[in-house]
């Protein structure tokens, strides 16, 4: 994308009907560290890759609990993400206060999208430079939404955003049809495999990713949104690596093999 005379304000259309400031905002999302979300018919998982600002600093938190039943992970200007998380938490709390019930995820995603849209139609504002993956559970099951800086939002079975997310998306495109039947463990495994694709060679450890899960178990009890403990993540990563190194393992492990063999670099 190059500079042009229609990109100064978000309130200016280009002759081709584009609003460049909005597209630049979406570029900011693409520059952020990768984030992946997946859904089965019982659970939704979010994985974020942790990129520290420097060797001396800790990584920036990108996965947040919004309410017991919903959480977000974002890529892009994380400060904008933090502020939007506060908004989402407020919306959930207000709804719970009036109705003593959880705000359905689709309605939460809509409120966020409407808020983002406002910033694309005011000359004194700028769009939020962050893309959010909203994962939550409501009456109708688990859901995953992607909220764009443009004010658009879509529901996904699986999605990846941020830098090198195309690698993850390619991986997910191959696997997503089976997700609905996955157990939570399998879902986390595939989410980690997807994030691994974005690391491009760098080793996946429990310290450079954050995993969160929300869902409903068989007897109907809801498992609230929570970040998965690092020990458990490391154990899952270790089991994934063990499966890779032993291709003679039973067929259930072959899924992981294919995942790590067909890295996008080969294409």
């Amino acid at each position, binding site marked *: 994308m190059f500079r042009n005379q229609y990109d100064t304000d978000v309130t200016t259309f280009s002759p081709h009907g584009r609003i460049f400031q909005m597209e630049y905002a979406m570029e900011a999302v693409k520059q952020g560290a990768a984030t992946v979300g997946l859904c089965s018919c019982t659970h939704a998982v979010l994985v974020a890759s942790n990129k520290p600002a420097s060797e001396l600093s800790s990584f920036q938190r990108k996965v947040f609990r919004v309410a017991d039943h919903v959480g977000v992970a974002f890529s892009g200007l994380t400060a904008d993400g933090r502020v939007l998380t506060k908004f989402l938490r407020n919306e959930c709390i207000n709804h719970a*206060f*009036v*109705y*003593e*019930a959880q705000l*359905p995820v*689709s*309605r939460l995603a809509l409120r966020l999208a409407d808020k983002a849209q406002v910033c694309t139609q005011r000359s004194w504002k700028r769009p939020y430079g962050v893309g959010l993956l909203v994962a939550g559970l*409501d*009456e*109708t099951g688990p859901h995953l939404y992607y909220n764009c800086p443009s004010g658009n939002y879509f529901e996904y079975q699986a999605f990846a955003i941020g830098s090198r997310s195309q690698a993850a998306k390619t991986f997910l495109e191959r696997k997503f049809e089976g997700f609905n039947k996955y157990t939570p463990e399998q879902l986390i495994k595939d989410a980690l495999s997807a994030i691994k694709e974005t690391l491009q060679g760098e080793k996946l450890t429990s310290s450079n990713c954050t995993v969160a899960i929300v869902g*409903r178990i068989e*007897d*109907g*009890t*809801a498992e609230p949104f929570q970040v998965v403990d690092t020990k458990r993540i490391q154990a899952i990563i270790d089991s994934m690596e063990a499966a890779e190194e032993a291709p003679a393992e039973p067929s259930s492990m072959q899924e992981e093999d294919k995942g790590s063999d067909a890295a996008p670099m080969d294409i």
Partner: protein
Amino acid sequence: MASDTGASYGSTLRYKSVERIKAVGKHSLIGASGEFSDFQEILRYLDELTLSDHMWDDGNSLGPKEIHSYLTRVMYNRRNKFDPLWNSLVLGGVKKGPKGEEKYLGMVNMIGTHFEENHIATGFGNHLAIPILRAEWHEDMTFEEAVKLVEKCLLVLLYRDRSSINKFQIAKITTEGATIYPPYSLKTYWGFAHFENPAQGAVGSW
């Protein structure tokens, strides 16, 4: 849920065919006593609420608990503004949750007091019907048993509450939907010996 179909204007029994129980959304029933115009206003609020909920068309719907909570907020906030909606509302419903069918029965009154219970009554019902319900209600009653029990309460209220009339409506809510039955009357007996010549032997009579 059951109520009579009368609405008074002070001590005058002005309207005798008033439906005081209405269906709300897909899963609930609301019954009201008190100021009827305020009930009509509440029905309008609920109409707006259930309409926008329905228009979402996203598979989610407001259950009885949510509607009860919403009404509680409305009633309590109006009371705090010293402009109450002068009603006692009974909210009942059934909704399928992730753990199966969930029944709900609660009430909220004009000052915002609200609670959930297996038997609810308003006005004189609190004094005359609740004791009967407490003694005779049990889990897993059939619809017929419940109607009999409720009719027992209605009869007591008919005899003893001067603002009640002998025209009742029963309403039922299940996961299949709401049914409000047409009005009917209960048989009353007035042939007690004491009612004949009630003044005989009274002080001051001749």
